[in-house]
């Protein structure tokens, strides 16, 4: 490090610095909560997609069965 001499901050500025730091910490907490929420929604979204995929696979099975019956007429 080139310059390690201490820096002096005016006392009223210092108070504001502390206030801003508090705000930053609270905003950071909020951001963490929102990120958790995004993660939860993402999991929910993945579950919805998986259910959708399952439903479509079921439909596909049924269509295959119908198709098979239509292509193999009884005598």
């Amino acid at each position: 490090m080139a310059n390690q001499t201490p820096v002096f901050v005016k006392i009223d500025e210092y108070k504001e610095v502390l206030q801003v730091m508090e705000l930053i910490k609270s905003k950071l907490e909020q951001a963490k909560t929102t990120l958790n929420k995004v993660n939860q929604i993402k999991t929910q979204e993945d579950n919805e997609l998986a259910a959708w995929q399952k439903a479509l696979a079921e439909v596909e099975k049924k269509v295959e069965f119908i198709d098979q019956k239509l292509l193999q007429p009884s005598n």
Partner: protein
Amino acid sequence: MSKETQKKHVYYAGLSEPIEVRKSILEASREVLQSLQQFDKFSAVRREKKQAIADLKSNVSEINRLFSELKSHLPNAAQAPAVKAATQKHELKVSATAQMTKQKSKKQKEPSVKLKPKELSELEKLEKELGEIENKLGGMT
């Protein structure tokens, strides 16, 4: 051929397990309708996610603003020589690039209508800010 003769020659294909076929058609229809219901649910989840991401972006922007405010409250100490050198190097680089761009643009035909200087996009602003911080950090090590 008369209509009556045509009627006589109608052929039918027999379906084995007709009840099963009907049942399958109905079940498939039900599944498709349920999928459409799921689509609505999925869209709602997506909207919720979009909102949450917008909130997150606003939170992070606010944190960025607060950091700027924090910097403004701290005294403007003289830059260390290494930091100065790095900043000057960056400035030289920028001015050299600007000159090259100027020369290039001179070579090209000047458009008849003067274009307004392009405003920096959000991403470009962030890149610029990041570059400045990287330079300062580079000067500190």
